């Protein structure tokens, strides 16, 4: 069934049992902490992503939000993929995810880079849902910029 491509088990798992959900303070008081709240105006989905970083490593990525399975699972995957990573690495993954979501189903994802994020390949075939998947990633990008760490190249969603 076509629907299985969209609602992969991995996505439903992340939705039902989200990883690292809830906004947290930084463990290290020296960390810079910043957050961004993004809303999808067409559906009302909301997510807040908060990063704690020393400028080189993303020590924590915490989040909270309400929305559909796709947007909330995407936040969980983002947390799992990028938490503890170097800033440069994290932006490379961010770029790969945005490329996957903008590819209208024509991009073959690299599991080594995207991990559970590959499950979102099917979402790219549903233009109405691409914004759901990207919502936490765009909030993450804003949050890192506010934390004063490098900005990834401009993305078009």
């Amino acid at each position: 069934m076509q629907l299985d491509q969209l609602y992969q088990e991995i996505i439903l798992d992340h939705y039902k049992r989200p990883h690292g959900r809830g906004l947290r303070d930084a463990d290290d008081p020296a960390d810079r902490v910043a957050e961004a709240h993004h809303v999808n105006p067409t559906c009302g989905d909301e997510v807040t992503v908060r990063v704690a970083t020393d400028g080189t490593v993303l020590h924590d990525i915490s989040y909270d939000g309400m929305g559909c399975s796709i947007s909330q699972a995407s936040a969980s995957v983002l947390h799992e993929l990028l938490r503890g990573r170097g800033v440069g690495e994290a932006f490379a993954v961010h770029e790969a995810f945005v490329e996957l979501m903008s590819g209208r189903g024509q991009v073959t994802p690299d599991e080594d880079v995207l991990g559970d994020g590959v499950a979102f390949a099917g979402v790219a075939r549903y233009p109405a849902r691409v914004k759901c998947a990207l919502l936490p990633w765009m909030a993450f990008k804003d949050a890192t910029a506010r934390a004063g760490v490098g900005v990834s190249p401009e993305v078009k969603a």
Partner: protein
Amino acid sequence: MSSLTIPAGMPQFDDVPRFDVAAVRADFPILDREVNGHRLVYLDSANTSHKPRQVLDVLAEHYAMHNANVSRSVHTLGTEATEAYEGARAKIARFVNAPSVDEVVFVKNSTEAINVVAYAFSNASLGADGDPRFRLGPGDEIVISEMEHHSNIVPWQLLAERTGATLRWIPVTDAGRLDESGLDDLVTERTKIVSLVHMSNILGTVNATARITARVREVGALLLLDCSQSVPHLPIDVVDLDADFIVFTGHKMCGPTGIGVLWGRGELLAAMPPVFGGGSMIETVTMARSTFAAPPARFEAGTPPIAEAVALGAAVDYLTGLDMRAVQWHEKELTAYALDALATVPGLRIFGPTVPVGRGGTISFALGDIHPHDVGQVLDSLGVQVRVGHHCAKPVCTRFGVPAMTRASFYLYTTTGEIDALVGGLEQVRKVFD
């Protein structure tokens, strides 16, 4: 079971005109198509309705055979186009029982109609010679409700910002009806206009307006009713409604997109300054100044959506042919059926009236904690088209404490079988997400 004898002369259910739904469906080509390998089940008519062949044919015929600009040509085609355009206006006037055909202003949609009224207030407030009924300033008040579509909120917020007037609103009860308990404090001598939805696009509530109208008259304010969701579904009589303005849109009533109607009392339209300036809306133009045509032309600057207006006339013919009382009754039966059917779905919560009284065939609901986007996506995979999201009525979502709702809405071509398909689809949704 007890039996009841209906006294002679009393109206009975049998007196209500009926139509054959299968025959009606045969008029709508799109209803034959498949979606994702399933027969289309279209439950999104509150968003936009489908168009019968009778309307599509008129639209094509107009462009194919009668295409010319209106109100400015002496040639044959121009005369035909003008007669068709003005003929459509007359049909629409009859459809809502407007006392004069000149009270029907063609606009793009309901949103534009409301904005025209709001900007007429704005323009009248600029100069000293504006009609006092349309003059707004600090201390004056505009009253809407918490149940409005964004199109009946934002234009008034902007008008309040421009003029310094205050925007107030009538709250909504837990049952999804207007809370009129504070009406006398909300609508006062300070109120200049009350603008309310007649039938809610999200809760399905059909507002009983008589008490509000009485209060509006008492304080000398004006009353606008947003009839976008009622004109397509109920017999509407502007004399009976006793409003000052009503607005509605063609595409929700079997007509094309791009055409809507502002109906206003003749003397009020005549007192309103123009909003859009341009061709067709003038009396005379010099380089120094212009004077303006009488309504409705005053509010129809530029080449209007001619073919769309003509096709809306055909839509009105189609609806009149079915009899709006029959349409209303068909949807009442569907609504009663759907409310019962949805009540059998575990975890389903209906927003708005749960009885088929004082409501139309638009039902919004939540299915447990499952997000409406996910509900809509699974239903779509089964061919069932519903709307999900905030339905351009975010304050209603906030009122009921949810970010979004799933909405099924019915029309004259909807069948009980399609409601069964919805209920079956919701079972599938629960399987995926529970």
